């Protein structure tokens, strides 16, 4: 959830997570925007398909990997959420989206 006292957020924006639309604020990381909505599971692991979420919160542990705009292995705790961003749960090693082609 978002704390409303004493926080003056940036402009609102919209992004999707697994196809569902969410509102976020410019400057928030993907992980923060999703946790604010109570979405804790960000990926499922390769070997056991276990759920994982934010862990170290500072880019060290690589547990919060999501797919962003068709590209896997994006660290949700570091990457700022952007208008129109398409975020997906990364399942295993993920998949290349059609929009990932260079």
């Amino acid at each position, binding site marked *: 959830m978002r*704390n409303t006292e004493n926080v003056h957020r940036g402009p609102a924006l919209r992004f999707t997570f697994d196809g569902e639309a969410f509102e976020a604020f410019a400057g928030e990381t993907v992980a923060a925007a999703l946790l604010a909505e109570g979405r804790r599971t*960000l990926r499922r692991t390769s070997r056991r398909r276990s*759920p994982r979420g934010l862990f170290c919160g500072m880019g*060290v542990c690589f547990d919060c990997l999501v797919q962003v705009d068709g590209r896997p292995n994006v660290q949700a705790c570091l990457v700022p959420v952007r208008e129109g961003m398409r975020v997906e749960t990364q399942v295993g090693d993920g998949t290349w989206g059609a929009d990932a082609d*260079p």
Partner: protein
Amino acid sequence: MPTRELVVVGAGPAGMAAAIAAAEAGLPVTVVDEGPRTGGQIYRQPPAEFEKRTVDDGSPDARRGEVLLRRFEELTGNRIEWMGSSTAWGLFPPRRLAVERDGAFRMIDTDGLILAPGAYEMVPPFPGWTLPGVMTPGAAQVLAKSMGVVAGRRIFLAGTGPFLLVVALALHRAGAEVVGIAETVRFGDVLRAFPGLVAAPALLRQGWGYLRALSRAGIPVHRGHSIVEARGGEALEEISIAPCDADWFPDRSRTRRIEVDTLCVGYGFVPRTQLAQLAGCHLVYSASLGGWIPHVDDEQATSVDGVWVAGDGGGVAGSWVAELEGRLAGLSAARRAGALDEASFRSGWRHIDAELGKLRRFRAALDSASRIRPGLDALADGETLVCRCEELTRSEVDAGVDMGATDARSLKVVTRLGMGPCQGRMCWPSAVRRLAAQTGRTPEEIGAPSVRPPIRPVSMASLAALDGGLTEASPCSTGAVLEEVPP
């Protein structure tokens, strides 16, 4: 490309203080940090898009941070060049730093290099520790302090050290229900440490203040308790804590279950030594300071000429010590570059050194109380994952050790422990204690894991464009923007 006079890696308290001290002495300084804004982890600022908001929450720590941030900002563009969102991923001889920013690269040659990379939290493996909802106190703090996002509704914290108390208060203020804190250090051990703690009365008072605030907020501190297990289906639903003995072995017959959706666990910090290792700095082992750390003299200079280490990256001792060490390194670098005369350096040094002495006595007492006991490493059972990236259970890693993989490198190739993207940062601090116990050696005898660039995953496109200077992009254009480096 011109060689810079001084580069500082890291913009937490140590890095900012170092840059300020050197810049005030007249030396041009370049500061490189992964974060988009200054502050590091402890003084992490709100995103630039948020309306300006102070990091000052009234605590003395935060006030010191605010002063550093303001002074740093005043000097930025003047003597300080700020390179945010920039990852220093390699260091080539003699002092050539490889930096990536948005898929573009720079190679920066410098005469002086101050490393202030900080530390990350040590979390021991225990059943359920990979569930979403289990995170480090630092992760929850950053969300709350910089973005005003509370990680959960009902939060419990477990581990050791005053940082737990700080985070609990921050979460409480941000509107979370903080259910309690399990501080594993027993009351008797705190009492034994008391004579040392008196060395820094200000810090002692600060700690007392945290405890009073927690008490006023009705947040119970379960002293001498350890986390035992986290449970849940898709995410955390419930934890178990239990009182532990002097060696931190929990008494499982007195386990208490608590329903929570978020658990923050941290048992101290691990210094980030990779760049110092690449620089060839001599390392020494210090269990109380977080493991292998670069050896420094009384000016924070390492064994490599022109390379200093300051702050938690050189041994974990907290933000105040980090700031003082940074200032010392900055002064030392300024003197080496000829920007500061010997007399001015000495007078600065005397003042800081005296202060550091008191703080380090305090810290040593605290470290001795919270040094990791064997019971912590017994929380995991055979089926507990010990390598989060590669999903390896303790039994799987043990099998590798039984077959003769008794060092970091062999374990990596045989079991894949540490082969994942965190490069062993999460698993190794605990794995090395297990390995030591199994093979009858000390972590010191096992040695520090070897380090090669890149020290964290780095864009292949930026590597392809590497050549020590500006180049065109790789044969098939990667879209990487190559930045002109200002002289």
